[in-house]
């Protein structure tokens, strides 16, 4: 299974994502520069966390318009699984692959700690490793993680089972405690917490290892 991690200027979780994917697949992912126009052959794409383009204009706004994103959008529309973590989630909303927007945290603080998430839907390729209602612990580290969408969109996300992860104790003011959502086709996930940071007991947790292993198994 071939995987790709997109690297934007000021991505800072790209190498963590590479290690997590390597652990789950046994193969080294391709790191793809934002200025490239084409993706290598890939079965799974990760948009990593960070502060791409210094968060200029809006978090993720510049990255979403970078050359590689045209290729990512095309692949995503063709069904290739895409995960956007933290800044990656922001980029996915800015690119129109996921609804809503990630706004400044309601408390204005940069939040940086472990959070407990409830797995709301385990029927997605991104959550099949977990039980529905299972609590998992991933760290958050963001300033703009306050998920916002109009109530009609939120209702649709809920009724279609597209809220995959929900905060138990909301750290950022996100609407309906939403931590992670999928697109309507179910092949694109955006989440603010960082599963790639908890892939070994040495790092304080292994729920992220289960996340990547489950995803890799589901993608095949």
């Amino acid at each position: 299974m071939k995987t790709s991690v997109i690297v934007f200027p000021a991505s800072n979780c790209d190498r963590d994502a590479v290690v997590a994917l390597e652990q789950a697949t046994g193969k080294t992912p391709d790191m793809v520069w934002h200025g490239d126009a084409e993706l290598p052959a890939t079965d799974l794409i990760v948009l990593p966390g960070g502060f791409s383009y210094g968060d200029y204009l809006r978090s993720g706004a510049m990255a979403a318009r970078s050359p590689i994103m045209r290729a990512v959008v095309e692949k995503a529309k063709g069904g290739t699984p895409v995960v956007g973590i933290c800044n990656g989630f922001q980029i996915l909303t800015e690119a129109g692959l996921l609804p809503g927007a990630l706004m400044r945290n309601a408390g204005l603080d940069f939040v940086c700690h472990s959070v407990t998430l409830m797995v709301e839907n385990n029927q997605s390729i991104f959550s099949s490793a977990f039980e529905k209602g299972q609590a998992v612990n991933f760290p958050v580290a963001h300033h703009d993680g306050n998920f916002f969408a109009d109530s009609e969109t939120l209702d649709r996300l809920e009724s279609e089972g597209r809220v995959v992860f929900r905060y138990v104790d909301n750290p950022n003011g996100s609407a309906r405690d939403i931590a992670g959502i999928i697109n309507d086709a179910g092949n694109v996930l955006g989440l603010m917490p960082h599963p790639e940071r908890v892939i070994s007991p040495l790092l304080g947790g292994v729920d992220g290892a289960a996340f990547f292993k489950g995803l890799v198994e589901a993608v095949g």
Partner: protein
Amino acid sequence: MKAKITITLKNGVLDPQGKAIEGALSGLGFSGAGDVRQGKIIELKLDETDEAAARAKVEDMCRRLLANPVMENYSIELTA
């Protein structure tokens, strides 16, 4: 032409930065100032000389990059 684009958060969208500014104003002793909202202004020069064409171009820029329609409104001011 010159364009000045003012981008603001939509009504009803929580603006924590505006709230913090409001709190700081009150801390400085400015009473009676409320509903503080923070936005941004983008200025740019255009080769266009026709106002309608310039407006159409800037509208397109706003929709595709400068503003996020999920949470922001924008207004455009054009001057020669």
